[in-house]
Structures are given as C-alpha cells and as structure tokens.
C-alpha cells in the first residue's frame, strides 16, 4: 500500500507537496496551454467549436433542463479526469486520480456545483428539497447528499487504484510485455470513468436545478443515458 500512497516531492515547512500536486498542476498548465493556443488557430478553433457543440448536444439530450451553463464544468471535468487517468500509462508518472484527495476535491466541486446551480435556478427555495417530502427526512437527505458525493470520489479512486494494483501485480509476475493488453483496458477504463464522473455531475446538478419544476410536472422523466 505504500506504493499506492503519493510521494512527497517537495516539503515546504509543514506543507508536503505530493506527486499528485505536481502532476495535476502540470496537467492544468498543459490543458490551458493547448486550449488557449488551439483557440487562436482557425482550424483548431473550428474543431473546438464542433466538439463543443457535440458535447452540448449530447448533454442536452441527457437532461430536461437547459444544459448550456453546465457544459464548461462537465467538459472541464472530462478533460481533466481523462488526462489524469491516461497520464498514469506513462512510465514513472503515477495517475493523480489514484489519490483520494484529488477525487474528493473533484467530488466536492460536483457537490458545490449542484448547490450553486440549484440556488441560481430557484434561490433559497432550493433548500426545501432537504425537507421533502417532510422535515423528518432532513437527516436522510443530508446523508444521501453526502454519500452521493463520497461515492463519486470513491468510485473514481477505487477504479483507478485497482487498475494500478492489478497492473503492478501482473508486471511483477509476468514481465514487461504482458501488461500491454491491460494498459489498453486501462485506457477504456479511464475513458469510461471520466465519462461516468462527468455524467453523474451533470445529473446531480440538473436534478438540483429541476426541483422547482417537479412541483408543476407530476413525473420527471429519467435523463437519457444517465447511469443507474
């Protein structure tokens, strides 16, 4: 398990900056740099536009509320988590998403986004959903929100850590070439996990925005493509 614990690369007094901090920081710089430079190149910018519209349309098909303001958040989560997952395939560098601190931070972002967009959609009336269908359900609703956020963090963390562990075991037992198929599987897992994280954030946030609508619409359809 020590191998799974991120190493501290820089100690600044009481603050120890781990490998996760540096790798995720580098990924941030890389994503911002590629995005900013690409947006200035006409052909790449047009490709961005096509990709952005495609993502926007895909997200809009999943929810019944207006998904346009959620696109930047979900797209950023996908790009960051996917790059963080895939960077672990490189030699020496460990995937930052195997660090529960990072996945917890991302889950907190999703939790906060749900509340921010919920308040933005209906103001203080948003808090009523904690005491629905009656005030007795308040603790259960709070536990539900917390467990949902915790599940987000643990799902991503568990999937990525398990992949790292299995890969390390296979390498130690069978040599260097055999893990290549497992790496291909890791690529698929990385894409799927990034997709699931973003979609769950979308569904939670959209459901928070949709509370007010539930009062007028008797039955809210299940968002298409949302994971169960």
């Amino acid at each position: 398990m020590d191998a799974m614990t991120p190493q501290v690369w820089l100690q600044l007094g009481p603050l120890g900056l781990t490998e996760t901090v540096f790798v995720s920081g580098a990924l941030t710089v890389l994503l911002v740099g590629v995005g900013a430079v690409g947006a200035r190149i006409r052909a790449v910018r047009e490709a961005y536009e096509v990709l952005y519209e495609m993502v926007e349309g895909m997200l809009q098909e999943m929810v019944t509320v207006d998904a346009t303001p959620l696109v930047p958040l979900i797209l950023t989560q996908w790009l960051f988590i996917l790059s963080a997952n895939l960077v672990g395939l490189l030699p020496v560098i460990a995937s930052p998403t195997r660090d529960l601190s990072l996945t917890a931070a991302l889950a907190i972002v999703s939790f906060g986004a749900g509340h921010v967009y919920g308040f933005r959609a209906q103001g203080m009336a948003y808090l009523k959903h904690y005491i629905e269908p009656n005030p007795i359900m308040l603790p259960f609703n709070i536990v539900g929100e917390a467990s949902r956020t915790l599940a987000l963090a643990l799902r991503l963390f568990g999937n990525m850590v398990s992949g790292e562990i299995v890969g390390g075991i296979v390498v130690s037992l069978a040599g260097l070439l055999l893990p290549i198929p497992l790496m291909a599987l890791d690529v698929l897992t990385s894409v799927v996990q990034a997709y699931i994280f973003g979609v769950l954030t979308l569904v939670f946030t959209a459901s928070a925005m949709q509370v007010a609508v539930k009062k007028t619409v008797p039955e809210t359809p299940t968002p298409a493509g949302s994971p169960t």
Partner: protein
Amino acid sequence: MQIDPVTFAFELINFLVLAFLLQRLVYRPVAASIAERRKEITETRAAAAEKLALVDKRAEELATRDRELDALRETIFAEATAAAATERAKLIAEARADADAERKRVQAMLAAEREAALGWVREVTVEKGVEVAGRMLLELVPDAAHDALVRRLFDVLAAHPELREQARPDETVHVDATFARMPTKEQSQALKQLLEASVGSTVRVTITEDERLGAGATVRVRDRVFDASVAGQLEILRDDARHQLAREHA
C-alpha cells in the same frame, strides 16, 4: 488512502483555476463563435424563410394567374368554338346554296342541251321527212307531179288579176320563168298568153331550167314570185312542220 488536506485544497483550487482559465480562454470564445454562427444561421434562415414566403406568395400569384389564364383560355376556346360552329354553318349554308345554284344551272344547261337535242332531232326529222316526201313524189309520179304543179302555177297566175293594176300600156314586162324541166312550146305559149292577160302588158318571158326545183316551176313578175315547184312546196311543208312541232313543244 487518506485525504491529505494540503493536496485536497490544492486540487480543489487547481480544478477551479483550470475551469476558470478554460472558461476564459477557450469555452467563452468558442461559445461566442458558436453563438455568432447560430445567429448568422438564424438570420440566414429568417432571410431564407422570408424569401421562401416571397416565393410562395409569388407562386400563389402565378398559380392565380395561371388559373385566370386557364379560365381565359377556356372562354376564348368556347368563343372560338362557337364562332367556328357559326362560321361552319354559314359556310355549309353557302356551300349548299352554291351547290343548289350550280345544280339548277346544270339542270338548266341540261334542259337547254336536251332542248337543243330535241330541236336538232325535230329539224332532222322534218328535213328527212320532207326529203323523203319529195323523193317519193318525184320517184313515184315525176311527170304527173310536174304537170300538176305547172297547171297549178297557171291557176295561180290566173287568180291574181291585181298584177294588171300596176301595168302601163307601153311597158314590156320581163318575166323570169324557171322550170324543173324545159316546157313544151305549147306550155311556153300558154304561159306567155296567161301572163299578158294577167299583167295587161306585153310580156317578155325568159325561161330557164333548174333541176333543183325537182318538178314544177317558178315565175317572177316584177317583185313578186309565184312558186309552184316541188322544192318550194317542200320548203313550205318544212316550215309548216317546224311551226307545228314548235307549237306542240310549247
């Protein structure tokens, strides 16, 4: 498998910074471009819709015009048909009138032709009848006929004493006498005496022979001609027959 507060805080800030920077540097310009393009598309669609509406309106106008032209064409066709029927009836009537007139003209022409043919037949009949009668007379009783006609000439001359009224005492009247056969001396003497008695003057008779008379003789005294020849009688017979046939035909 612990949550490091430093790492957690850094990752939280890191992600928010990443989202902020991507929003400022990438998403906003891209979304603005998309919005601009959608706006252009919307405006283009609106313009296209306006043009389409204009085209529909124009098409409707053309359809209305087409219907009006169809109605006008139907009207013109009906009027032309009626005019053609009228003209055809008129032409047919004119053709019938022309045909009737032509038929009448042809019938008149045929009647005239028939009349002419009948006239020719009558003429031939008369001519041949007279010719046959004269021939029969001359062949059956040539001498008796000649003598009878001469006697009749004498009777006629004797029955015209008015010739004497024009006589002058010292005048010699020239008389031309034509016989089918030369008369005998007695007949010539008797003729001269008869003429002198009738005319009341001296008579100088010139006698000639003309076989074309068939039988009998003719005498010319001044401006009067006494004809007692077969040819003359046949001519009289011919004229009588012609007049008789003409009266019967009429």
